[in-house]
């Protein structure tokens, strides 16, 4: 009798984890469910937790200065051009390649943009698409070298790195730094959403944007859940669902509140978010994205499954080129000028961000969102240590240590689950 009761009890616990509405479950049920969710996704959440710990530590050490509106706003704006590179690099590393040329290629294309606008008088709304297309072409060229000619991407892109470094010097040599005075263009790197009004010191339009994002998020989560239920699949319990909604909404609200307290959302942040959303959707919800993961996890099997590995390689390098161009535009706009050294070491920052963000060098594993978090982690470390007055020599060493630690954590958790 006791035995059957016990059995009935455990099975209801197990069921409650997935099926039963929370109202019927107990608090222990919910706790168990949360725990198992956390366990399964520890690698993914690990990064968010690391970011949270880093931010909290710096906030305490700087008496809250780190989390001030001004600092966070600057931090995100300064991450922009690395972050978009990290997104592109994520795809490249997933298909087991690397692109070392992106730094100077970004600098070069930024300089070309500056020249087109200042010397050729091209309006900025023509310049930007032209540069983006140029980026795609350059990226595709790398793709052909790698996929069709069969040069290792490390070598091909190393050659590209030298070539673009020279090309950047060549186009900036005569004039030195090229100043850009197009206010629209410069706004991409320095401007913010226009001000409508201020509500107790907060930018109204940014607040509205934040609210819209939260509403969209909630709408999509509900749609997803309804769709799953229509297929009669298991969904998380209502309470966990509600907690998740509130938690994510609160984070968006908090970020909005912080940014609205300074100048509001910058165009850089909006572009960065758009890139992340588009690429996240591409990688998770489209056939193309799945083919990219397939090529990365086993190119031979992908080929035998009818996937055109060469085509995927072209596309990934083409997208890298386009994001490189975007990065160059963001950087040039931020400095309001093209310099002879623009793009130095961008590629390594992007690669580091991707690895910190959980991309696997063995290929086939990695998330766009992870890489963005990785980029923000690295930027937060710099920003926080700057506020604390840590010497640049120590900063490099600490960032290197964090990179190593992130990869070690990644390898360990993979082993444990593998």
């Amino acid at each position: 009798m006791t035995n059957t009761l016990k059995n009935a009890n455990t099975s209801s616990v197990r069921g409650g984890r997935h099926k039963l509405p929370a109202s019927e479950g107990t608090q222990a049920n919910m706790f168990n469910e949360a725990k198992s969710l956390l366990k399964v996704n520890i690698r993914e959440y690990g990064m968010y937790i690391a970011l949270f710990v880093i931010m909290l530590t710096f906030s305490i050490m700087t008496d809250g200065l780190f989390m001030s509106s001004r600092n966070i706003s600057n931090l995100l704006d300064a991450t922009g051009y690395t972050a978009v590179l990290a997104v592109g690099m994520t795809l490249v590393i997933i298909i087991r390649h690397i692109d070392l040329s992106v730094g100077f290629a970004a600098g070069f294309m930024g300089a070309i943009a500056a020249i087109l606008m200042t010397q050729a008088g091209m309006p900025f709304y023509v310049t930007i698409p032209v540069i983006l297309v140029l980026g795609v072409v350059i990226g595709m060229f790398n793709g052909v070298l790698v996929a069709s000619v069969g040069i290792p991407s490390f070598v091909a892109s190393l050659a590209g790195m030298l070539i673009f470094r020279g090309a950047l010097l060549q186009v900036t040599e005569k004039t030195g730094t090229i100043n850009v005075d197009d206010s629209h263009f410069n706004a991409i790197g320095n401007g913010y959403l226009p001000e409508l009004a201020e509500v107790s010191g907060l930018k109204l339009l940014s607040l509205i944007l934040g609210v819209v994002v939260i509403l969209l998020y909630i709408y999509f989560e509900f749609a997803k859940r309804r769709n799953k239920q229509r297929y009669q699949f298991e969904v998380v319990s209502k309470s966990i669902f509600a907690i998740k909604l509130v938690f994510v909404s609160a984070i968006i609200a908090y970020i909005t509140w912080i940014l609205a307290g300074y100048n509001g959302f910058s165009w850089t942040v909006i572009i960065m978010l758009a890139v992340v959303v588009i690429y996240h959707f591409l990688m998770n919800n489209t056939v193309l994205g799945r083919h990219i993961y397939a090529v990365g996890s086993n190119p031979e099997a992908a080929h035998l499954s009818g996937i055109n590995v060469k085509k995927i390689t072209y596309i990934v390098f083409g997208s890298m080129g386009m994001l490189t161009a975007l990065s160059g535009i963001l950087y040039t706009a931020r400095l309001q000028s093209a310099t002879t050294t623009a793009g130095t070491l961008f590629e390594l920052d992007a690669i580091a961000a991707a690895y910190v963000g959980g991309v696997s060098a063995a290929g086939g594993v990695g998330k766009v969102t992870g890489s963005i978090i990785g980029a923000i982690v690295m930027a937060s470390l710099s920003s926080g240590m700057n506020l604390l007055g840590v010497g640049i020599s120590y900063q490099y060493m600490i960032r290197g240590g964090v990179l190593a630690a992130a990869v070690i954590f990644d390898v360990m958790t993979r082993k444990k689950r593998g």
Partner: protein
Amino acid sequence: MSDYILEMNNISKEFTGVKALADVNFKVARGEIHCLIGENGAGKSTLMKVLSGVYPHGSYKGDIVFEGQVQTFGRIADSVKAGIAIIYQELALFPDLTVYENIFAGNEVRRGAVVNWNQTIVQAKQMLDKVKLDVNPETLIKDLGVGKQQLVEIAKALSKNVKLLILDEPTAALNENDSENLLALLRELKSQGITCIMISHKLKEVISIADKATVLRDGRTICTLDASKGEISESVIIKNMVGREIEDIYPKRANKSFGSTILEVRDWSAYDSKLGRAVVKNVNLHVKQGEIVGIAGLMGSGRTELALSIFGNPKSYKLQGQLSVNGKPATFRHTSDAIRAGIAYVTEDRKGDGLFLIQDIKSNVTAANLHGVSSKGVINANEEVKVAQSYKDSLYVKAPSIEQIVGNLSGGNQQKVSLGKWLFVGPKLLILDEPTRGIDVGAKFEIYTIMNRLISEGMSIIMISSELGEVLGMSDRVYVMAEGRMKGELSIEEADQEKIMQFATQ
């Protein structure tokens, strides 16, 4: 005949649960050429790996007595030092180094840490003379043909004062002429007192060269035949190779009815430019709707190469001949073309090029047909779950959920996932390459049942298999391949183990 150079007594070797060798006794007399024969998986290679120290002393049971002393080889270097050299089928040469560098690789002529290259070349010339290879020692290995490369390998072995030379299928990749030369050389070496063990599938060769022949089957010694007593003949060897009872584990199909020819290749050849030789030679083959066609043969006989050359040619062989699907000529530029034409290929190497091991069951099942669960390039995640779940159920995949990572599944379940991936494509012709290799009997039976079900639904199957029982138990018609050629075609009524093995060992 008490002067045995080598005695292997009661050797047993187990791999996690699978007995590869069971009480094998193998004796080789000094100065003889002793052939080792058996089907794929009979234990020949394992036995030689035990002998050469690849599997160190302690990882197997039994004694190795070499030159009258019990040997405990801990690694390959120990057996080399004792005077044993193995030449594998895949040659272990450095293609970008010269002949003389290769001969003395790992065994350099040196004073202290400094290599004496002049002396090396002089000695290399002597070794090349011994194997009657007339090439400049400064030639790069990659510029030599396979036959000459093999001789370089033997020269390398001789440079180490070898007493016992072991050759693993030395003529498999050679043409007739080179094979003859090699066999002549072995006789020559024998006259110089070098003992030789040769693993071979070509019975004609065995008959012409062997003083003794030992047959292994299922990890056991079946018999040792003596040429001087006239015991070595093709029929005797084949009988001993295949003598296994076939268990009746093959589900029967009720009504067999075949439709029109859905795939045909004529005069089909494939040339592998990386290997520098043809891997498929003038093959004719056809498959009718509703038919299971078995392709038997030993490993390396060109069966997988044939399948790949038909299935969109992913290895970029140079192809010749006609391929037609449903009576119409067809050319496939990419695997995706073959898939579109209704052909699916389930690889023999599911871990290597069949599955995405780090991905889950769901992603693997839909990998070859993502368009089937998406519209305008956007995947319907729920539809995908439904599809994956239905294949998991209908193919009896044993896993807690479709989110299970495929790398963690057992071989049988992996094979079913691999099958599911191709069934979701909706093929008309399924090419199964070694569909039950390395999986347990229960899963085998399930796979046979699934095959019969697919046939009853109108599909056709080409089954490549090294297991004779499977070929005889499942096929409607049997082709036998050897050396890239179709050596024979048998109806299921006339096919038996001996006949197949006869064709396969030609």
